């Protein structure tokens, strides 16, 4: 695989990029902090990535920079065939309710920026016969819930977009993989009380890599969240209004 990776420096993205590198895949990293990207690129080379790992600046809140970043990746990888997007922002519901600027940024990065990037990626992959697009959404987008109203809305929108892509373009060779992690113990969730079934980034990476290999359209990670969310989706509104989940 020739993998373009946005979000490989932290959390679940770091764990997944490590697995890809240890398998000997070729990688190109995108992200906001070039120095941090360089450090991750060197690590992935130590772990066994194919060839040297390149990197370029790309900020999901600045879509004007997407084309140049993708051009660099295409040139270095001689045409990427797999794209992984794990980057995103998280803030708690009280934080987003109190800070409009932060709220706007989360909405922009998690939905608008991610979708616009995927659109450019989709066109490039389809132009060369297809490929794999793996994007991290969240179980927070499965149902409107009190603790994650705004964050969940961005992920709900993203999940619907990715599902649509899969319906329309799978027959053309574009496999879209939507990852729906539950609570995972990363730097992003540090300080929050982990609920039951909280997962580790390494567990998520293992499950997601298998899903990429198989072209599975939706993957819950850890897998138990599939069943947890099935129950949540079935709950009537009057119950959802009463519970804190």
């Amino acid at each position: 695989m020739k993998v373009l990776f946005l979000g490989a420096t932290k959390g679940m993205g770091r764990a997944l990029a490590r697995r890809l590198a240890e398998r000997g895949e070729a990688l190109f990293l995108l992200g906001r902090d070039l120095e941090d990207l360089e450090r991750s690129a060197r690590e992935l080379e130590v772990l066994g990535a194919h060839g040297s790992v390149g990197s370029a600046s790309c900020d999901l809140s600045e879509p004007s920079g997407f084309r140049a970043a993708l051009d660099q990746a295409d040139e270095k990888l001689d045409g990427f065939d797999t794209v992984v997007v794990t980057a995103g922002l998280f803030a708690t519901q009280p934080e987003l309710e109190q800070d409009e600027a932060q709220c706007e940024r989360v909405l922009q990065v998690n939905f608008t920026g991610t979708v616009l990037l995927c659109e450019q990626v989709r066109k490039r992959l389809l132009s060369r016969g297809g490929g794999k697009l793996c994007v991290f959404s969240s179980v927070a987008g499965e149902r409107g819930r009190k603790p994650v109203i705004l964050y969940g809305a961005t992920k709900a929108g993203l999940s619907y977009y990715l599902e649509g892509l899969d319906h329309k373009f799978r027959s053309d060779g574009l496999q879209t993989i939507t990852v729906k992690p539950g609570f995972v113990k990363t730097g992003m969730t540090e300080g929050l009380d982990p609920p039951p079934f909280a997962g580790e980034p390494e567990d998520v990476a293992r499950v997601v890599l298998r899903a990429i290999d198989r072209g599975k359209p939706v993957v819950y990670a850890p897998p138990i969240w599939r069943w947890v969310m099935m129950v949540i989706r079935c709950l009537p509104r009057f119950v959802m209004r009463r519970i804190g989940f």
Partner: protein
Amino acid sequence: MTETAIPERAAPAATDLPPATALSGWGRHPIVKAPQLRSEDLPRITVGATLTRGLGRSYGDASLPLPGAPVACSTLADRFLEFDSKTGRLRCEAGLSLAELNRVLLPRGWFTPVTPGTQFVTLGGMFAADVHGKNHHESGCFGEHVRSIRLRTADGEVREVGEQDELFLASQGGMGLTGHLLELEVQLKKVASPWIWAETSPVPDLETMIDRLLEASRHWPYTVGWSDCLAPGARLGRGILIVGRWAEASEAPARLPAMKRSVAVPFDLPTWALSRWFVRSFNALYYRVRSATAGAGIVSPQPFYYPLDAVRHWNRVYGRRGFTQYQCVLPTERGAESCRKFFDILVRHGGTPYLVVVKDFGAESRGSISFPRPGLTIAMDLPMRGRQTQTIVDALNEHVVAEGGRIYLAKDALTRVEQFRAMDPRIEAWNELRRRYDPKGLLKSALSVRLLGDEA
């Protein structure tokens, strides 16, 4: 030493700190409530932190802040940064775990030059505690193989510090109190195969154990003894001598050693598991079983170096009250008699440890306050039983002071400051150097307040 300008990072405001959580070392005593910051961006979270901790495998209070004081946790800052497969020189972030290092680089023929008895430690923690292992007589401490470190000192500067620098030497074994360790560069050891040739043999008593340890150290790179200090009379200190070396490629299996799944202690065990008769019976049974199965052969490095890693949460064996691990070194010139007296004191005060680890040390480490010095080191677990455990530790320390030995800070939780100062006169000079980089005394731990003169 070079200083690096890094982007200005503001210390986290009190409102940005996560809620205080209960933190402890591996011994689960003491327990401190404090906010712990954990992020991939270690340089950011160390701003304003009073201490950095890793995987929390020191036993007592070495990795604990004062109650309510922010502590940074390095475990997410765990990247390999550079590895030269020709020379074995590795640069990494301080939170890289030894388990991960072994998983990635042992199959390629590289191993840490010195390993402690667990691989669930960070390389930063290994340097801060200047850990030793079964090869101390040959290879010294881990810090002897570190070539440079990247340290954020309390004045906010990030410094690249080479091994000749006095700040480096103060940090090697300095228990994380000279600065926040961000990165380190270490020289790994080339091994002929990823397998170990090991030999075990029963030893009838303490004096023989010491003689055979010293003799084995002349021929083997890795040596250690497990002794039963509850065996009666002349059999006191009987045990198992374990020696080993890396197997040559020609004698090792072609396959890689399998990573065996570990089992877990699911809950805190009841107190009868620590009673004298139970521990004595366990030790006797262990001696018999290991004597019957003694021999030589190829083994995986995992059970050879890290036998207890096979049992997750093994610290639950000691129940909810936890335990302390007592480790001291008695000078070589004091001989076996000093060691026997140590065991006598232990038993007389009601100490009932499971197997005791005995090992001879080589030369003193270059670290300013590193633990090892030439002599015989003894390590054992003591369950926390309030005043009784304190009395045992006091009595053992009295003996150690009289014999000119010292204790290991990475294990300690109960030593009194007067006894520690009597053991280690090096602390004053080390503190003077610390104050040059930390005049306001910002960096401190529960241990440094208890023993090293820091203010609460």
